[in-house]
């Protein structure tokens, strides 16, 4: 799309063009409605202007069919907007299963990012073009929001929970990263850039980063050091369940509830294990609240995830 005057930022993700189509539809419908209202107000104001103080127009009380028409037509258009917007929202919120995973920890006033290779970046995110990228995000302090205008995606980054956002960049280049949730004094300086690279350039960039440890490897070491490995034996014969293959699967709790063992559950369980104990096991795990940083939590979860992926790879 090219306009003489830019109305939207560059389209640099697979979703951007779809969002712009929807925005253009909304602009079109709004322009038609606003235009006809303005035209009628101005037309009536001129045509029926008061010509004499004695004028007493005949009353028109109302018209039921007109009322029905101007209720039903806007309602129909509104439903189209709703359905189109909801469909797109689902796409924006459904990361593909094969997406490259990046961890983001936000704090006043910086973005701390960790690549799958373990490389760390501050206020910069390097990604390869044409590959879906999923960000798992949390905050160390207040609420922030991750916004890349050129990708048309945005998601709040909330302390105490994980949120995710994904995109697939379509053009190499540099794009804005803005924090859009007011987070204190230097909110306006909590900005960064997304660097989209060709796969070759990205590969070279990752190799150039040196032998960083991947989050899963760092997580494995933490798993040993924090004492998790003493109870969560891989064969399930310890006092706590085996974590091999658990990630992404349903587990049954002592309350008979079934929950999916995703990032949010694992995080909550590590911090406050007493709240949701797995059925068949004693509630003996100590809480790790205050003992692990957000970065370390992300690493342990990455390790538990890698156990599931290993098992799947073996099965195949």
């Amino acid at each position: 799309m090219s306009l003489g005057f830019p109305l939207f930022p560059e389209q640099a993700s697979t979703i951007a063009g779809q969002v712009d189509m929807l925005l253009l539809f909304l602009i079109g419908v709004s322009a038609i409605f606003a235009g006809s209202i303005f035209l009628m107000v101005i037309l009536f104001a001129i045509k029926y202007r008061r010509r004499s103080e004695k004028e007493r127009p005949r009353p028109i009380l109302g018209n039921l069919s007109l009322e029905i028409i101007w209720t039903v037509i806007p309602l129909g258009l509104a439903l189209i907007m709703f359905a189109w917007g909801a469909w797109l929202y689902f796409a924006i919120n459904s990361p593909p299963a094969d997406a490259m995973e990046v961890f983001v920890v936000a704090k006043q006033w910086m973005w701390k990012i960790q690549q799958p290779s373990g490389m760390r970046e501050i206020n910069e995110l390097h990604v390869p073009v044409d590959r879906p990228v999923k960000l798992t995000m949390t905050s160390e302090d207040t609420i922030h929001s991750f916004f890349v205008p050129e990708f048309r995606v945005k998601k709040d980054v909330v302390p105490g929970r994980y949120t995710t956002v994904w995109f697939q960049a379509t053009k190499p280049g540099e794009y804005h990263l803005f924090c859009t949730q007011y987070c204190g004094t230097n909110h306006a300086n909590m900005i960064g850039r997304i660097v989209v690279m060709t796969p070759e350039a990205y590969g070279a960039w990752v190799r150039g980063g040196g032998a960083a440890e991947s989050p899963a490897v760092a997580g494995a070491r933490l798993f040993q050091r924090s004492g998790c490995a003493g109870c969560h034996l891989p064969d399930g014969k310890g006092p706590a369940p085996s974590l091999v293959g658990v990630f992404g699967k349903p587990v049954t709790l002592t309350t008979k509830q079934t929950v999916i063992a995703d990032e949010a559950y694992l995080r909550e369980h590590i911090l406050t294990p007493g709240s949701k104990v797995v059925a068949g096991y004693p509630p003996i795990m100590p809480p790790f609240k205050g003992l692990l940083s957000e970065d370390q939590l992300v690493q342990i979860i990455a390790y538990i995830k890698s156990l599931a992926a290993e098992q799947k790879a073996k099965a195949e």
Partner: protein
Amino acid sequence: MSTALGDRHENYLNVDSSVKSWLLTTDHKRIAILYLLAATLFFLVGSVFAGLIRLNLMTPYGDLVQAETYNKLFTMHGITMIFFFLIPSIPAVLGNFLIPMMIGAKDVAFPRLNLLSWYVYILGGTFTLVAATLGGVDTGWTFYAPYSTVYANTNVIVTALGIFITGFSSILTGLNFIVTIHKLRAPGMKWSRLPLFVWAHYATSLIMVLGTPVIAITLLLVALERGLHLGIFDPALGGDPILFQDLFWFYSHPAVYIMILPSMGVVSELIACFSRKRIFGYEFVAASSLAIAILGFLVWGHHMFVSGQSVYAGMVFSLLSFLVAIPSAIKVFNWTATMYKGSIAYDAPMLYAMGFIGLFTIGGLTGLFLATLGADVHVHDTYFVIAHFHYIMVGGAMMGYLGGIHFWWPKMSGRLYPEAWSRAAGLILFVGFNLTFFPQFILGFLGMPRRYHVYPPEFQVLNVMSSAGATILGVGYLIPLIYLLWSLRYGPPAGPNPWGAKGLEWETPSPPPTQNFEKTPIVTEEAYAYAPTEAEVG
């Protein structure tokens, strides 16, 4: 009627001019004037904050003020304008003055409670002004946790208490109006004969009474959490920051309707009078006010589409948000249809009403962008949102308020203001407003986030346009302030009904006597009976 009384009749203004008589008055008209003075003061304070914000944004680098100061400026601008100007403006000033007169009553149902409401409002306002002079507050008017409860180092508790206190003024005023409208209507003033201004205030009062306690509780929890670390919103203590957003918007979205519904009521009166016609589809316009009041309570989640709220909750809130747009559209169509085959005069109040229709239509339509899930993700928390709600609150609520002030000024003061100046001011405001806020829609599309003290240089041109518009807007506000004050001394006497308007308030002298009417009026006709009577036709 009572025109024979002339200009020097005894009225609510000249009956006693001592300060004590004003501070202890229970006359709804005098209380309205007290509110007018206080609200104007808060408006001026809020405008100064806005002016500094726009001045700072002339350059991308934050050359005027520091980041901390900037954050305090937009916070204090929002708090002053929303809680201390827009919410009380039309209901407490025009509603107080007019509702009893429009229904043929001598006063509101609880006159002393009415005076108490004003003092409560002033007390709350004082807290907030004290917080401002002690160094201000920097949480944004939205007070999002855990920033407000843990990380902000400013006067959060004092400000929150100020808003908490002022909320009671709102609740009591709403209660007073509901009882007044139910119990004090003159003989013959059936519900189906009520002016649409009164219907709009009835709907508004319901929101005030039902919604305000929720913001009061929420802000109290913020203050308690900040002081005592209760762990309600702070995840580090086991709380949930999203819970704060649910509670906050449960009030603060309906609060938008507290601001806009009374303005819609004003516009209905203006369009009818200056078209000399009954409002087209009276029942639909009245019912749509109630529909907005009810549906308005069910859409708060549309402020949280990118907060991590469930996708399905997002869908429900999106659908409901579209539904609440329909009654507003119905009103706009009916106002436009009222002008059809009318006898339209271009007096200043009508210019404001037509300006309202234009700006509110743009504000409403851009609201649809924000209700549309996939579109909101991009424009959420950008300048698009700022532009949208200023079209509603300034283009809508403020235009309605000024239109109403111009319409009923002769009734309130007994004086006429200069016509040419008033029309010019209306046009200047319209132009200035659009130049200020239309570029902000484009800034939002381009991705400029709100609440940014500095910004990437590519956004500068549009920001300079916006700041230039704000200057014109400022001039547009100053002119009426001058000529309305001038008119108090030099304006020619207005007479009871300078516009040839229908409605009981126009059947009594200007300014009205303390008891409003010499004897209780008896209502025998519908509202807006501008049509020629059979005798005149015959």
